């Protein structure tokens, strides 16, 4: 396997870095070029199309192949024209949650319905990051953003399910904490003849600090957010250890944790973790969960939750085959020319 320096030399333009320190977009770029390198494909055959937003900057200006950086939400429609005219272009679309599921949501479901042979990587950072952290169609209910100062009144989309329902033939969802799985999925997606969709939950230290309420010094924030993404997801077909619970804490977390530890005694271990929907909570691991729970009736514990509550399912959701769109267009051409 190539090291980062070699990958950079082979696939990345100059020494550009358009992202904030600790941004998840760099990880996704890394996974993408690793996937391209593993596939051994010629970079000259790869076209990256993107919309507008931080996530749309993953390929442009970084990727050293053909890039088409388009308008907000429309990348899939631009890509459709290029792919149809030259089906040999291995086309990958990078988009954001706002770009792909908000303003461009219509193009997304129609690309999936047509099953056009593109790979679409949608970076879900739960907000419109580039414009300053406003509500996106993925923002969690009650999140405080720059346009929901009293909490988000809306409910988020489950984008991967939406695209699966619309007819995509490969659908996966990972986080920036799942780099190996994500890289493997990008390879699978790029080899799928039809429409492939990968949603990536990603950290955006700049905006999520407020939106997700993760209070940490700047240098710790990216890793805190990465841990949070792992903590808040579960793999659909994974073997998961479920002998743990979360306790939602009352008051200052560190002192509340101390109270939890004291109450638990030897019956379990507790540690503070960040959770996407529960906030900063104590994760309690115990061999006998019921016994541990019985000890936690203390004022510092507001609520005890099951290990799955409020988590997002990740993994590969769809792998199937049906007629790809440019192939269907070729069929139409043969019919029109009376070749069959």
């Amino acid at each position, binding site marked *: 396997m190539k090291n980062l320096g070699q990958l950079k030399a082979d696939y990345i*333009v100059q020494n550009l870095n358009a992202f904030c320190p600790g941004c998840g977009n760099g990880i996704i770029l890394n996974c993408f070029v690793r996937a391209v390198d593993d596939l051994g494909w010629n*970079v*000259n*055959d790869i*076209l990256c*199309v993107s919309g507008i937003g931080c996530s749309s900057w993953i390929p*442009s*200006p970084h990727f*050293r*192949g*053909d*890039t*088409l*950086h*388009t*308008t907000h939400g*429309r990348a899939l*429609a*631009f*890509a*459709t*024209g*290029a*792919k*149809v*005219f*030259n089906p*040999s*272009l291995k086309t990958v679309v990078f988009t954001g949650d706002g770009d792909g599921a908000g303003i461009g949501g*219509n*193009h997304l479901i*129609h690309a999936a319905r047509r099953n056009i042979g593109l790979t679409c990587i949608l970076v879900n950072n739960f907000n419109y990051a580039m414009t300053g952290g406003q509500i996106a169609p993925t923002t969690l209910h009650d999140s405080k953003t720059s346009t929901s100062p009293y909490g988000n009144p809306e409910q988020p989309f489950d984008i991967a399910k939406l695209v699966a329902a619309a007819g995509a033939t490969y659908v996966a969802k990972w986080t920036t904490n799942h780099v190996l799985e994500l890289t493997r999925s990008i390879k699978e997606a790029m080899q799928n003849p039809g429409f492939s969709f990968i949603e990536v939950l990603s950290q955006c230290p700049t905006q999520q600090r407020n939106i997700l309420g993760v209070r940490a010094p700047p240098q710790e924030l990216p890793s805190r957010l990465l841990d949070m993404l792992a903590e808040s997801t579960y793999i659909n077909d994974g073997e998961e250890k479920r002998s743990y619970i979360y306790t939602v804490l009352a008051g200052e977390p560190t002192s509340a944790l101390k109270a939890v530890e004291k109450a638990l005694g030897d019956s379990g271990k507790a540690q503070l973790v960040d959770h996407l929907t529960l906030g900063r909570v104590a994760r309690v691991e115990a061999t006998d969960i019921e016994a541990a729970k019985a000890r936690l009736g203390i004022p510092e514990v507001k609520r005890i939750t099951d290990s799955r509550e409020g988590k997002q399912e990740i993994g590969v959701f769809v792998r199937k085959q049906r007629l790809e769109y440019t192939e269907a*267009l070729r069929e*139409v*051409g043969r*019919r*029109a*020319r009376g070749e069959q």
Partner: protein
Amino acid sequence: MLKPGKHLVLGNIACAEGALRAGCRLFAGYPITPANEITEYMSNELPKANGSFLQMEDEIASIAACIGGSWAGAKAMTATSGPGFSLMQENLSYAHMTETPLVVVDVQRSGPSTGQSTDASQQDFYQARYGAHGDYEIIALSPWSAQEMFDLTIRAFNLAEQYRTPVYFLADGMIGHIREELAVPENIDVINRKAPSGPSVTPFGTDDPSLVPEMPKFGQGYRLQVTGSSHRPNGVRDSSPKVHGDIIRRIMKKIAQAEPKIRDVAKLNLDDAKIGVISFGASARPSYGAVKKTREEGIKAGLLRLKTLWPLPEEEFTKLANQVDAILVVEMNAGKLVREVQRVACGETKIASLTRLGGVTPTQGDIAQEIRRLAQ
């Protein structure tokens, strides 16, 4: 495709035929009256010609697919009418910034909004010129017959390729739906975009006096960076004042400086005219009738018919203003071209306006009446 020779066809079909003859091999559109016949005809003919017909989910996607296809090497076209044309504006702005050749056909109908939906107008005269955001120059053509729906569509493609720019084909519901004789020639002249001459290319800059850079396509190994953000000649994003100013000035100048070559006007009975009528498209037909009618009555009337609306043929307006006693601008909107004529020729001669709303052309009688009044 129609064989060379004479045919009786609908204006819209002549337009689609012209596109096919000019080399259009990608069409992306969305249904709207009165442009549907173009879209339907392309769906029938393009697959036969190894081209691609796409019906997209909306007009935003249609123009986007044309731009993407153009960078993949296609001569691309879309056809729409007012509401769809409005939806395309943001991506048209992108097409100007990225210097993407393509043809947008707007078979104008009567608005605002749904308006009369199927009836003709010339109300998008300014939407074509100023509809999108930012600074840019456009080329817009205006046909007045089925024959010109064919001829000028071919020219639209040639201009798009030559100047690497979107070209606006401003037809109207009446000319789109007129059924007339079309003479399809044996051979036509086709211009293709300048391909890169060597192993490296600067797709957004050139030393050539035409100011039109070479245009590579995706998949050739040039590792193109195409972006609607301000960019250096090599395509790399750069929003510094100098880089932005340079690119905007060049994309405007490449069209403005070619105006005399792009300009196409028909001068009918204009040599000795004392009353000059200026019109275009459908409204030029009764205007010509009125000119001939009033000539029979001894009035020296003539018609300046614009086949290119933009860049505006300002020199022609000035020349005409210096020649005649009065100018009458005839159009199917509330008065748009007349503002331009006034701006250019104000103070040189008397300028009158005859406008017609309601989805119909002004009548020959109304125009003749106005010519008589001005001749008094």
